[in-house]
C-alpha cells in the first residue's frame, strides 16, 4: 500500500481570488475617506477600502500632532489588514512594518506583528515568517486566541517546509491553547501525523479521542491518513499485528476522506461567504479561508492516490485473525466478500470461513463453506476449504454430513489436492456409520489412486477394520498383515497386531488366534488393548477346555484399567462361571468379593451377589446364602435390567427343591408375600419377575400355572420385562405354538437387551425363523429378504458369541443358507469353521456333509464323494449322517460312471443292520436295483 507522500499541503496564497476589482473613487475629505473606508471594511470590501485608507495615510501619515498620530494608528493598521485580505501581502507587510516603526508599543502592535508574519508566510518566505512569529512571541503578550494563531502560523511554516519534527512544538502549543474543538482537533491530527512519521506510537493514543470524530480534521487530512497507513504497514511487515491494527483503524477510508472533504469544503465556502458579507472577525475569515485552501490542496492530493480501502480493510481483517479475534475477522472478511473485486472477494470468503472454524458453534463455518463451494467450485481455496469442512464434521462426529459433504466435494473436484485425506475421512465416516462395504470401497480407492500416499498405512488399517466388522475375516487379516509388514512403525501397528488375532478368532481358528495374542502380549505388555487381548485368551482357553488358564487370563484382564466395563464384566462373570462349575467356591467368593469391592461404574452388582450366594450355599452356608439373596432381591428387584436378581431367584427355587420341606415352604411363602407386596405397590417389574418364579411353585396347580403363563404372555408386559422374563416368554410362547408372538418377544429382546444370553437365544430364533421362512417363500424378493435377515442374525451370533455352542449351530445354518443361495465359497467357509473347533465335534459329520453338498452342487462329485466317505469312516456312530453319507457317495460315484464302486458302497451300507433300518436304506435299495438293472 505505497502511496506517494503528499507535500506542500499547507500552501498559501488563496485570498486573492476572493476580492473583486477596485471601484473608481472621487476626491473627498479625510473624514469622508475615513467613513467610507470603515463602511467598506464593515461589509468585507477590503480591496475597496485600500484606496481610502492609502489616501488617508498619504494625507495625514506624516502629521506630528498627537491627535492625528493617534487617529492614524488605526488607519495604518486597517490599511495593513485591508491589503492583507486583498491578497496584497507585500503591501500589507510594508504597512505593518511602517506601523510597528511608528507605533512600537501601539494598541495593535501584537496583531500587526502577527499579520506581518502571516503575510511573509503567504508570500512563501517561510523562514522569515517563522522568525517573525518567534520574534512576535518574544516581544508581545498575546491573548490566548492570538497566541494560538501565532503558533498555528509557526507550525504551518514548518509543515510547509515538510519539517514535521520542528512542527511538533508549535502544534503542541496550539493543542494546549486552542479555545475550540476545531483548532484542537486540527492540532491533534497534525501532531499525530508527526508522531506517526517518527513511529512514536505511545504519544498518539492520548490524541485518539480527537481523531475519531465526524468533523475531525483527521477525516479530511491526506497527510495524516497516508502517515497512518505507512506506519501501519511498517508494523504489519514486522508481524506486530496488534500495533498495526490499532494504527490501521485510525485510517479513514479513501471514500470517507473524499466525501468528508467535499462536504466540509462546501460548508466552509458557505461560511466564508457569510463572513465576507457581514462585519465579522477578519481573522476568523482568514482562518476559514486558510482551511479552504488546505482542503482544496487535500482534495487534489487525494485524487493523486489510489483508493486503498479494500487493502486497508483486508489488512485490518487479517490483523484481527492473527490476534485470534476471529469474530471481528469474520465480519470484515464477509464484508470484503461483498465489497471487494473478484480476486479479493474469493480469498475473503475463504478467510471468513477460516475464522469461523475457530468460533463455536460451527454452523456459520459450514454455511460460509457451502457458500464458497457454490460460488467457487473451481476456486483457489476449494481444496483446503472442503478438506477442513470434512475435518470439522469429523470433529463433530457428524458422519452422515461428512459423507454427503466429501462425496459432493470429490464429485466437483475429482483431482482434489487432498484426495487421499478426503477418501480416508470418507472411509472412516462410513465405518463409523457401520457402512462397512462403503468404507472398504473408499479405502481401496485411496490405495489404488494414491499408492504412494502417506496415508496408505492408515488406509490399510481402517480397511482391515471395515472388513473385520463386516465379518470378512480373511480379507481383514490381509489388510492387517499389510500394516504389520509394511508399516511396522505406524501408530496403528499395535492395534493391527491385535486385530489380526481377532480375525483368526472370528474364523474360529482359536489356536492360531491364541498364538498371535500371546505374541502380541509379550511384545506389547503395556498396550491399551492388552486387557482385551487377555480376555480373548480367556475366551479361547475356556472354549478349548483349558479352564485354569482361562480364569487366570480373565483375572489378568480385569486388572487392566483400560478394559472397558462391558469387557470387564464379561471377564468377571466368565471367570466366575468357570470357578463355580469347577467347584472352586472359596475362590468364587473371593473373586466376586473383590469385584464388589472394586465396584467399577457399570458393574453388575446383583449378578455378583448371586454368585457369592451360590458360593455360600455350596460351601454349606445355606442360611447365610438365603439371607444374602433376600437382601439383594429387596434392594435390586425393581430394576428390570438386574439380571443377577433373576439368577438369584432361580437359585432360590433350586435350593428349595433340596431343602427341608418346612424351610422350602417358608421360602415359597416369602416369595408369595413379596409378589403380593409388589402388586400392592404396582411394581410391574417385580410382579413379572416373581410371576416367572411362581411358575415353579410346587403348591401351584397346572391350571394355575397356565393362568400365570397367560398373564405373562402379553405384549404390554414387554416394557417391564427383564431378560429372564423375556426368555420365559420366548420359551412359553414357542411351547404354545405362538411363534409370531415369540418373534415379537425376540425382536424386543434384541432391541432392549442386545448383550444378554437371552438376546443370543432371540437372535437364533429369528435366524432360524428367517431361514425357514425363506425356504417356504414363493416370492423371490421375499425369499431374498428373509435370507438376508437370517444371514444378519446368524453372522452376528457366530462372531459376537464365537465360542458359544450356538455359534456352531449358527455356522451350520449359515452354511445351508449360503448353499441355497449358491454362494458356495461362503458356505464352505462356514462348514470349515465348524470343523476347526474340537468342542463342536458333534456338528462335524453335518459340517462334512455340508462341504460335500457344496462340492456336489458345484459339479464336483469326486471331491464330494471324498467328504461323504470321511463321514461314515470317521463318524460311523452318527448313524443318520452315516446313512446319508453312504447314499450320497454312491450317487456321486454313479455320476462319475463308477457303478461298480457305487454298488459296493450301497451294499456295505445295507450290510449294516442299524443303517439298513433307516429310511435312507430304502433309497439305497432302489438305487442298487437301478445299478444292477
Amino acid at each position: 500500500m505505497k502511496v506517494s507522500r503528499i507535500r506542500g499541503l499547507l500552501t498559501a496564497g488563496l485570498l486573492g481570488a476572493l476580492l473583486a476589482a477596485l471601484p473608481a473613487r472621487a476626491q473627498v475629505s479625510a473624514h469622508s475617506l475615513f467613513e467610507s473606508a470603515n463602511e467598506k471594511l464593515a461589509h468585507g470590501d477590503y480591496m475597496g477600502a485600500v484606496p481610502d485608507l492609502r489616501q488617508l495615510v498619504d494625507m495625514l501619515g506624516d502629521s506630528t500632532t498627537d491627535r492625528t498620530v493617534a487617529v492614524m494608528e488605526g488607519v495604518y493598521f486597517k490599511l495593513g489588514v485591508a491589503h492583507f485580505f486583498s491578497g496584497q501581502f507585500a503591501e500589507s507587510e510594508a504597512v505593518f512594518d511602517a506601523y510597528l516603526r511608528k507605533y512600537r508599543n501601539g494598541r495593535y502592535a501584537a496583531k500587526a506583528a502577527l499579520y506581518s508574519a502571516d503575510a511573509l508566510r503567504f508570500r512563501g518566505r517561510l523562514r522569515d515568517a517563522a522568525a517573525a512569529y518567534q520574534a512576535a512571541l518574544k516581544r508581545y503578550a498575546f491573548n490566548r486566541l492570538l497566541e494560538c494563531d501565532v503558533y498555528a502560523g509557526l507550525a504551518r511554516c514548518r509543515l510547509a517546509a515538510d519539517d514535521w519534527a520542528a512542527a511538533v512544538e508549535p502544534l503542541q502549543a496550539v493543542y494546549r491553547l486552542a479555545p475550540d474543538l476545531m483548532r484542537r482537533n486540527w492540532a491533534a491530527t497534525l501532531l499525530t501525523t508527526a508522531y506517526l512519521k517518527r513511529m512514536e506510537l505511545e504519544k498518539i493514543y492520548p490524541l485518539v479521542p480527537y481523531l475519531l470524530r465526524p468533523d475531525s480534521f483527521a477525516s479530511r487530512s491526506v497527510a495524516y491518513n497516508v502517515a497512518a497507513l505507512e506506519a501501519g504497514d511498517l508494523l504489519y511487515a514486522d508481524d506486530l499485528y496488534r500495533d498495526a491494527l490499532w494504527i490501521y483503524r485510525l485510517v479513514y477510508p479513501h471514500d470517507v476522506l473524499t466525501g468528508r472533504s467535499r462536504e466540509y469544503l462546501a460548508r466552509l465556502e458557505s461560511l466564508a461567504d457569510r463572513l465576507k458579507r457581514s462585519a465579522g472577525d477578519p481573522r476568523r475569515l482568514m482562518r476559514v479561508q486558510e482551511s479552504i485552501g488546505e482542503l482544496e490542496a487535500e482534495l487534489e492530493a487525494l485524487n493523486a492516490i489510489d483508493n486503498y480501502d479494500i487493502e486497508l480493510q483486508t489488512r485490518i481483517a487479517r490483523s484481527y485473525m492473527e490476534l485470534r479475534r476471529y469474530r471481528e475477522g469474520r465480519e470484515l472478511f464477509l464484508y470484503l466478500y461483498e465489497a471487494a473485486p473478484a480476486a479479493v472477494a474469493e480469498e475473503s470468503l475463504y478467510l471468513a470461513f477460516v475464522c469461523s472454524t475457530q468460533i463455536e458453534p460451527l454452523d456459520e463455518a459450514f454455511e460460509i463453506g457451502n457458500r464458497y463451494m457454490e460460488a467457487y467450485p473451481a476456486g483457489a481455496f476449494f481444496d483446503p476449504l472442503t478438506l477442513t469442512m470434512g475435518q470439522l464434521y469429523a470433529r463433530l462426529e457428524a458422519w452422515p454430513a461428512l459423507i454427503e459433504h466429501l462425496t459432493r466435494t470429490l464429485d466437483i473436484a475429482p483431482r482434489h489436492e487432498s484426495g487421499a485425506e478426503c477418501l480416508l475421512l470418507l472411509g472412516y465416516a462410513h465405518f463409523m456409520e457401520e457402512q462397512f462395504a462403503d468404507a472398504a470401497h473408499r479405502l481401496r480407492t485411496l490405495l489404488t489412486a494414491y499408492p504412494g500416499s502417506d496415508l496408505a498405512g492408515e488406509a490399510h488399517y481402517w480397511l482391515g477394520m471395515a472388513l473385520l466388522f463386516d465379518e470378512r475375516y480373511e480379507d481383514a487379516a490381509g489388510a492387517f498383515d499389510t500394516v504389520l509388514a509394511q508399516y511396522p512403525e505406524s501408530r496403528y501397528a499395535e492395534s493391527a497386531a491385535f486385530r489380526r488375532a481377532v480375525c483368526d478368532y472370528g474364523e474360529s481358528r482359536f489356536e492360531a488366534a491364541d498364538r498371535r495374542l500371546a505374541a502380541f502380549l509379550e511384545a506389547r505388555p503395556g498396550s491399551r488393548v492388552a486387557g482385551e487381548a487377555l480376555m480373548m485368551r480367556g475366551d479361547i482357553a475356556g472354549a478349548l477346555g483349558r479352564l485354569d488358564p482361562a480364569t487366570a487370563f480373565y483375572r489378568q484382564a480385569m486388572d487392566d484399567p483400560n478394559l472397558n466395563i462391558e469387557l470387564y464384566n464379561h471377564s468377571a462373570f466368565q471367570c466366575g462361571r468357570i470357578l463355580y462349575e469347577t467347584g472352586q467356591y472359596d475362590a468364587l467368593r473371593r473373586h466376586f468379593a473383590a469385584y464388589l469391592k472394586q465396584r467399577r461404574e457399570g458393574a453388575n452388582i446383583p449378578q455378583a451377589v448371586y454368585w457369592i450366594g451360590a458360593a455360600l450355599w455350596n460351601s454349606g452356608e445355606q442360611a447365610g446364602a438365603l439371607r444374602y439373596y433376600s437382601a439383594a432381591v429387596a434392594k435390586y428387584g425393581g430394576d428390570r435390567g438386574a439380571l443377577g436378581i433373576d439368577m438369584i431367584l432361580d437359585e432360590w427355587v433350586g435350593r428349595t427343591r433340596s431343602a427341608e420341606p418346612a424351610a422350602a415352604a417358608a421360602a415359597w411363602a416369602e416369595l408369595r408375600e413379596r409378589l403380593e407386596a409388589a402388586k400392592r405397590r404396582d411394581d410391574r417389574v417385580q410382579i413379572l419377575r416373581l410371576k416367572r418364579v411362581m411358575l415353579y411353585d410346587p403348591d401351584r396347580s397346572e391350571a394355575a400355572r397356565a393362568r400365570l403363563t397367560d398373564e405373562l404372555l402379553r405384549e404390554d408386559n414387554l416394557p417391564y420385562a427383564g431378560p429372564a422374563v423375556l426368555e420365559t416368554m420366548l420359551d412359553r410362547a414357542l411351547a404354545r405354538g405362538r411363534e409370531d408372538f415369540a418373534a415379537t418377544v425376540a425382536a424386543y429382546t434384541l432391541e432392549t437387551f442386545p448383550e444378554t444370553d437371552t438376546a443370543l437365544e432371540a437372535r437364533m430364533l429369528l435366524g432360524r425363523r428367517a431361514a425357514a421362512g425363506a425356504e417356504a417363500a414363493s416370492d423371490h424378493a421375499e425369499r431374498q429378504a428373509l435370507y438376508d435377515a437370517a444371514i444378519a442374525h446368524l453372522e452376528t451370533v457366530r462372531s459376537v458369541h464365537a465360542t458359544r455352542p450356538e455359534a456352531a449351530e449358527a455356522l451350520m445354518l449359515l452354511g445351508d443358507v449360503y448353499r441355497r443361495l449358491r454362494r458356495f465359497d461362503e458356505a464352505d467357509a462356514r462348514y470349515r469353521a465348524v470343523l476347526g473347533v474340537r468342542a463342536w465335534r458333534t456338528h462335524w459329520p453335518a459340517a462334512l456333509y455340508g462341504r460335500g453338498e457344496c462340492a456336489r452342487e458345484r459339479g464336483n462329485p469326486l471331491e464330494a464323494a471324498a467328504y461323504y466317505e470321511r463321514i461314515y469312516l470317521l463318524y460311523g456312530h452318527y448313524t443318520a449322517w452315516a446313512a446319508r453319507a453312504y447314499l450320497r457317495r454312491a450317487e456321486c460315484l454313479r455320476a462319475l460312471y463308477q457303478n461298480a464302486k457305487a454298488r459296493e458302497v450301497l451294499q456295505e451300507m445295507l450290510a449294516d443292520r442299524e443303517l439298513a433300518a433307516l429310511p435312507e436304506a430304502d433309497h439305497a435299495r432302489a438305487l442298487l436295483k437301478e445299478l444292477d438293472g
Partner: protein
Amino acid sequence: MKHAPSRRFARPGLAAWLVPLCALAAPAGAPDAPDTFVQTAPVTAAVTVEGAERTVTLVGRAPGRVLFTVGEDAVGARSAIEVDRIEAVRFDLELDETEVFRDLRRRNWLGAARRLLPAVRPALPYLDLPANDAAEPALRAGDGFMRAAARRADLAETPEQEAFVREQFETAYGILTQAAAARFSPVGALAELKAAQCLLALGKTAEAAAALEAAEEPLPGDAAYGLYWLARAQAALEAGAHRAALDAAVKSAAFETKDIDTFPDALLAAARAYESIGNPYRARDVYVEVASVFPGTDWSETARRRLAAILDRGLTDAEEPVPIKTVFFGLKEDMNARARELLAAEDALQEEETE
C-alpha cells in the same frame, strides 16, 4: 394550548422572501381546528424556503405545519407553513461553544449538557424541521446528560444519589426522544438509539428492546451503524444473551472505528461478552487495547479495572493453545506481561501525580 387561526401574509412591505412563503402558507379562511394547534415558546429562526432565507419567530405547531410570526407583528399575526416546504432552519442559539468545549475537555459532561440545554430548549419542538441547526446540539445535550448519569451511576451509593442519576437519565431521555424527530440527518437515528440506551439504564429493558426492534437496521458506513449495534449489544448483555451481545458488539467495533461515541464502548461491551462466554484471554486482549488506545479516559479506567480483576484471579495464567504457525515463527506475544506492564505503568504515573 389553543391558538387563533392562521392568516395569510398579505400585507405590503414585506420582503421579497415573503412571496414564496405566502404562496406556500395556508390559504386564508382555512383555519385549522383549534385543538390541533400547540403553542410553543417563541423562538427566532432564519427559515429558508425556495432558496430565500427570512428571520421569523416560530410560535407553534400544527400537524404538518409550523406557526410563525414576522417582524414587529409577532403578537397575534400568526401564519402557518407546511413543513415539507421548508428547506433549512437556522436558530438563533445563544450558545458559548468555547465554554462547552472547556467542559468537555474536563470530561464535565453535565456542565456541557447544562450549557447546551437552555440554548436548544426553545428549539426542541422544531427539531423535525429540515436541515435545522438545533438538532445536533440537542443530541449533544441529551448525550451529555446520559454520559454524566452513566458516570455517576457507578458511584451512586445513597438513595438520593441514585435518584439524581435516574433524573439525569430521564432528562436525557426527554431530550433525545425529541431529537429523534430530526430525520433529515443521522441525528434522528442516533438520538433514537441513545434514547433506547437511556431506557436500558433506567431498567426498562422491555421498552428498550422494543425500541431497538423498531429501529431500522443501518448498513456499514451509516452514521448510526456503530451505535445501533452497540445498543443491541448492551441490551443483549442486560438480557444475559452473551453470545448475541458479543456478535453485536463485534459488528459495532469492527465497522465503526471512527466514532469516539461508540467505538470504545463497543470494545468494552465485546470484552465483557468475552468474559461472560468464558474466554478471558480475548477479554484481556480487548481490555489491554482499550486501556492502551484510550489512555486517561473513563473507558481506560473501566478497562484497567476489569483487566486487573482478570489478572488477579489468574484467569489467563494457563497457556492458551496457539496456532502452530505462531509458535513456529516465534510470533507469540506474552499478553499477560503486556497487560501487567500496562497496569504497572499507569499505577506508577498515578503515584507520581499523588506525590
